[in-house]
Structures are given as structure tokens and as C-alpha cells.
């Protein structure tokens, strides 16, 4: 399904994690402007995370901030710290007049027709070859998660937003 977007619609997607946050900035569905993982650990990491997001909002002036859906009725298994952080990001965006959209993990999986985030990361690396060398190998069961996967989670959130379109988001808000 095609949606009409402003070709320069600037979207910032953020995926917070225990050791920092992954982010992706788009100008339209195919123009990836910036991406990365910001390591934020130890002291005042929540405050520093919010400060970093505020800096991204200031630098790129996005039209939309895309975050993972964190409604309790969606049975999202994220730590209370990350849920509080997502709320803080939302209020930081609202303060600047940036629209905030939430995309559920189910929507991301439906768009990429996959339930494995490493598979989704591989698909994204093919679509955006500049991110190919960031793509982490599938982790073994005894390994902790690679922080680079958060970049692809953010990319997946933004791509899903561009695929499902603003009409879908409006319908969801109205429901």
C-alpha cells in the first residue's frame, strides 16, 4: 500500500536500551540521514539519555518522533526504566512541538514478515547498504544482545512508520 508523504518528511526513531540508545533519522522513506548507537552508562544515564534525545531533536528538527508502543495492554516486556524513558522522550518531543508516534512490535513484524529481529536487521541492511557493516551476527543463546541491534530496531520503527502511513496512525489514535 502506497502512502503520500512529503518527500522531505523528517522522522527520528529512537530505541532505548539498557546501555544507551539506538537512533535513526530519515528525510523521506528512502533517505537515511543519520544513524547510530549512543553509549550512555553508569551515572545519571536517564538524564543523559533525555539530554541526548533533546540534542537530536534540536539538531534535526524532525516532524515526527517514532518510538516503540509501550501501552501496558500491548503486553510490552520492557523494564520500568525504559518505559519511563520513553515517556520522557515523548514529553521532550511534545515540548518542542514534534509529533510523537508509537509503533508496536507486532506492526514491525507484520511489515517485515518476520518475527526475528536479526532477520529484520538483515533485510534493512540490504535496503540501506550504508548500514551493512553495522549489522550484527545472530547472537548465541549464551551471549548478551549486541548494542548494534538497537540501530536496526530504530530503523525498523521508522521504516514501519513510512509503510503503515499517517492515516493508519490517525485511525489507531481515534480507536
Amino acid at each position, binding site marked *: 500500500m502506497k502512502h503520500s508523504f*512529503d518527500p522531505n518528511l523528517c522522522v527520528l526513531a529512537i530505541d532505548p536500551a539498557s546501555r544507551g540508545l539506538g537512533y535513526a533519522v530519515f528525510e523521506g522513506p528512502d533517505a537515511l540521514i*543519520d544513524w547510530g548507537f549512543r553509549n550512555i552508562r553508569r551515572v545519571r544515564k536517564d538524564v543523559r539519555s533525555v539530554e541526548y534525545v533533546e540534542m537530536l531533536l534540536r539538531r*534535526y528538527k524532525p516532524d515526527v518522533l517514532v518510538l516503540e508502543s509501550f501501552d501496558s495492554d500491548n503486553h510490552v516486556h520492557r523494564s520500568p526504566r525504559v518505559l519511563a524513558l520513553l515517556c520522557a522522550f515523548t514529553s521532550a518531543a511534545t515540548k518542542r512541538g514534534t509529533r510523537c508516534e508509537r509503533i508496536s512490535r507486532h506492526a514491525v513484524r507484520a511489515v517485515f514478515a518476520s518475527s526475528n529481529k536479526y532477520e529484520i536487521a538483515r533485510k534493512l541492511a540490504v535496503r540501506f547498504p*550504508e548500514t551493512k557493516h553495522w549489522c550484527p551476527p545472530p547472537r548465541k543463546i549464551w551471549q548478551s544482545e549486541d548494542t548494534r541491534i538497537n540501530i536496526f530496531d530504530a530503523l525498523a520503527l521508522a521504516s514501519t512508520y513510512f509503510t503503515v502511513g499517517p492515516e493508519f496512525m490517525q485511525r489507531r489514535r481515534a480507536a
Partner: protein
Amino acid sequence: MHKQHLPNYLRTHRKRHRVGQRHVAFLLGSKSGTKISRYEQFSRIPDLPTVFALEVIYGVPASELFAGIFDDARQKVEEHARHAIRGPDPMLAAFASLVLDPSARPPAKPTTTSS
């Protein structure tokens, strides 16, 4: 509403080339990547020789690298040209109309020889 470009896309192109700020700084003849960081954070605008050096480094025209600044400059020139068309000077008005409609411009003769 048409959204404006970012002032520059240096960070995007640097990341696409998978190089660090200090690598670009070395090619520009700087000792550290501080200047590059400031250009990428839009807190400082490079001078003209640096703009051309960046064009050579990334292989992208300066008008694309500095798309936001280019858009601003074009908007200002077009605004001045619209004023000039309404003004009393017929020669300036004719030149301003060429500025606003580049397709009506005669083909430019090359001024430099490529080596």
C-alpha cells in the same frame, strides 16, 4: 509545506564512507576532528576552500553537501530577482528574469580547461 533541507549532509556522507572525523580532518590538513565535528553539528560553516575540499573528499557537489545553505542562498537571490524585475532598470530586469528562468539562459562557454 515543503520542509527545508538540513544546513549540511557532511555527517551522512562521512558515515556512508565509513570513516571517522579524524580521517576527514587529516585529508583537510587539520590535526584533530574538532572542526569536522563543529561543521557536522551546524555550529560552524566552513570557508570556501574547505567546502571544495569536502566536495573532493566525498565526491558530491557542494550544493548537495550544503543543501540547506544552498536553498537559503537561492531563495534570497530569487527574491531579489523578483524585486529587480519590477524595478526601473531594464537591463537588470532582463538579467533577473534569466536568473528566475534558467532554461532561457544561453549555454555557458567553458572558462577552465580540465586536465
